[in-house]
């Protein structure tokens, strides 16, 4: 019993890393296309990661190493709880939404701790902005989660997927369109894409948290961002687009990622408190409207 857990664990984590990097590569080509230039091959991010792991690196304290590792492992641990298509790692905990939402914070906490141990003031400024934004986009996302839990009476993603099987009409996207719009905007904040990337603003705070990450630590940052893309898009596909078979699941994920990138490439950057105000007003009102509709109907 133990080893099939390990096997499933490896499958889950490696798919998330590889596919995450793949989406990043395709994403970079997609943005380049928008800017009318031809970015490198789609496997460019694999090369970047291998190059980063081949470089020497510096660290200020063992807490920095421990923190970065904890950040990466947090995100990987979350992916394990995500039902990819109909594959799941733990049979009795198939994608418990509340676990996923809280496990993501380990990723943030680990990265934040490691990076703030580096001593460069830019990184805590970045982390402060990231956390403030987090409280912003968590509200619409939490509302959407509450709505779905009320809708199908169980907080397991697996059950939410089961209810959306069959034809396209019973996807949650069509049943709760406003909630989907609100969640897409929240996804924009979760991935830290352009309108809400005050935390990585290269011009202002020299790429925020990643200012002191060199060599393999930056590699960890890349992998964490990749599996984060896989995770967040995976959650939303499971919630709204009825994550179908394995291939269907990946295409929906890619579609969602490219959608966020297309929004990202045309928007300037929000100040992070305006970002929080934005999150608390527009997407929240969308999802709230949908929730009230749902409560009235029930």
């Amino acid at each position, binding site marked *: 019993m133990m080893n099939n857990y390990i096997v499933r664990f490896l499958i889950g984590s490696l798919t998330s890393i590889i596919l995450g990097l793949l989406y990043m590569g395709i994403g970079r080509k997609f943005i380049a296309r928008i800017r009318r230039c031809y970015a490198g091959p789609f496997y460019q991010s694999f090369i970047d990661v291998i190059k980063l792991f081949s470089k020497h*690196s510096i660290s200020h304290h063992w807490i920095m190493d421990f923190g970065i590792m904890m950040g990466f492992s947090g995100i990987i641990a979350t992916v394990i709880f995500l039902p990819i298509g109909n594959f799941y790692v*733990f049979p009795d*905990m198939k994608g418990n939404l509340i*676990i996923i939402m*809280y*496990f993501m914070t380990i990723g943030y906490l680990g990265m934040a701790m490691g990076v703030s141990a580096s*001593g460069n003031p830019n990184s805590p400024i970045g982390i402060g902005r990231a956390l403030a934004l*987090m409280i912003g986009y968590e509200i619409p996302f939490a509302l959407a989660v509450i709505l779905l839990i009320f809708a199908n009476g169980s907080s*397991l993603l697996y059950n939410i997927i089961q209810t959306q099987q069959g034809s396209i009409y019973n996807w949650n996207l069509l049943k709760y369109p406003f909630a989907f719009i609100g969640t897409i905007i929240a996804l924009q904040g979760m991935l830290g894409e352009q309108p809400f990337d005050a935390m990585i603003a290269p011009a202002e705070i020299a790429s925020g948290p990643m200012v002191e990450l060199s060599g393999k630590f930056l590699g960890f940052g890349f992998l964490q961002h990749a599996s984060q893309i896989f995770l967040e898009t995976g959650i939303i596909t499971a919630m709204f687009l009825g994550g179908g078979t394995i291939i269907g699941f990946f295409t929906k994920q890619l579609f969602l990622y490219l959608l966020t990138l297309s929004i990202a490439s045309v928007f300037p950057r929000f100040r992070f*408190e305006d970002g929080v105000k934005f999150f608390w007003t527009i997407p929240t009102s969308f999802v709230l409207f949908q929730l009230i509709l749902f409560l009235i109907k029930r």
Partner: protein
Amino acid sequence: MIIGLLFYGIILSFLALFVRKKYNFLRWIIFSFYIFLTLFLTITIGKDSTYFETFNLISILNFDLSLNFRITPLGWLFTLFTTLLLFLTSIFSIVKNKNEDAERLINFFWFILIISNTGLFLADDLFTLFIFWELIGISSYFVISPGWVSSFRAVNYYFIFSIICSFFMFSGIMILYEGTGTFSIQKNVLYFISLFENSPLNAIFVAISLIIGFFVKSALFPFHIWPAQAHAKAPDDFSSVLSGIIIKYGLYRTILFFIPLFLFIKEYPVNHIMVNNIPLFSHILAWSGAITSIIATFLAIESNDMKKLAAYSTVANMGYITTALFSLSSFGIAGAIFHTINHAIFKTAIFLSIAAVKYRTHETQMHKLGGMAYKMPVTFLTFLLAIISAAGIPPLNGYVSKWMIYQGLLSSKFPFLTLAIFLSSTGAFMYLFRALHSIFLGQLPEKFDNVKEVPFLMQIPMYILMFLMVSIGIFPQFVINLINSVLTSYNISNINIKNSMIFSPLSGIDSVKVFLAFTGSFILAFILYLIGKPRKHVQPLDTYTAGQDPADFNLTRELYHFAYKFYGPFEHMFDSFRTDTKEFYDSIERKINEIGGYFRDFQSGSIRGTIYTFMLSFVLIIIYWWLL
């Protein structure tokens, strides 16, 4: 046997008073020995609720007043975890109080506090409950400010609030006594429930008198300012007791009275207004908890003093517990009790590590600290684990109770309450990280270069607390079985649990698998870490400063530590609706002083004045009689 314990405690407290200043660690050893004794006895007595003990005092007229004790599952559970945490804090304070100035006083009154703590939880009748309740109020007054001018103003808020609430409770008890003729809690609770049918006016008066106590003691909305004052100024090790244990007394009493009442109304909602099948009054209480947690979270985000921050986070956690408690679902109540225990554990850990930092640096302002992790690794690890479990992150114990609270709220269909709790728990993550960064990480100021780790005796409680947090996080079933026994005593449906796999109507979690998932991914990360080239250690100041060598513009490590207005812009968002409740209470105090001053000057008036007033008031009485 309990009476013997309490009596023996009083003798020991006087004995400890006469130990000379030179051997004051002996005083604190007696102190922690006594708590160990109580802990040992509570464990050996066990949960058989047939254990009854009485000690009669006096019977005037038709009052036969006596102290009697009974072991109820709830009381026993609360005694167990409070005494355990008190024992750990006492080990910590043996070393801390070596050169504290007023420690003889702190020790004596803290002793009385512990006696009344066990007495309160094991009390069987309201009279004993009230005696120990008032004893706690008086003794905590002297421990918070043992002759320190700075904490005198802070302790006044706490003291006045607790006196008002204890005497309102007294009037409530008297009305119940009139009805039942005895002080025993069981009969009075049943009478209290039946009171709502036959004489609602009495019932409401009693309910209000008990609710005020609950609002004050667990620092809910209108009274949420006193913890920040009292905890920030109290002696450091006592503030961990203050926010770990003393803030839970109001909660204990409410569980005794209001949970049976609301559950009864929930079953037979004869003529009560029901809001999605729970009584309106408990709905209001749940919402007051939610509002308190949001306000306290945003106040904590702004506070710059680390003890104030921890105090506000206690208020926020009390907010969660109240909301969960009054959602009246079985998971909600179980989650509330479990969160009380978890909150006590990780809050004691937070406050002990803060006390350790203050013991070494004598500094509480966060922006003046920094980089303590490099010098005090054990304190850092305790603080880190405490932060993780406070934010409710899975592998540790805070998560299981928060998860249960969410199951409780979601399964009984409270969308907006869950949202409020979720908002404040994400906010919790913000200020907890701010504390972690500004105290322990970032740059170490020059003046703290020779800071050493706290002595070993202070580290023992930290190790035990770390072990507690991890073990409850991974194997919550031991604590849940205890809570189940409490639930059965209030005949609420138990939580079905199969060795660390908790099943709830919405979903189930197996915390062992959660832990395995985390360790597995950590091993994966470690392997990746070994693949990459070995990293090189570098000086703290060797960071990217856009090409400029920090030494050139004489940049010290202290200036380089970003912590002062960590969420500055975020705070400006709330400038428009920022009301200062402390200002409100100060204005009341000034008003009373003014009136008093007016009467005082009136008193020492001229002689002729006195005669006129004498005659005038005599005439006034007759007119008053005429009008009446």
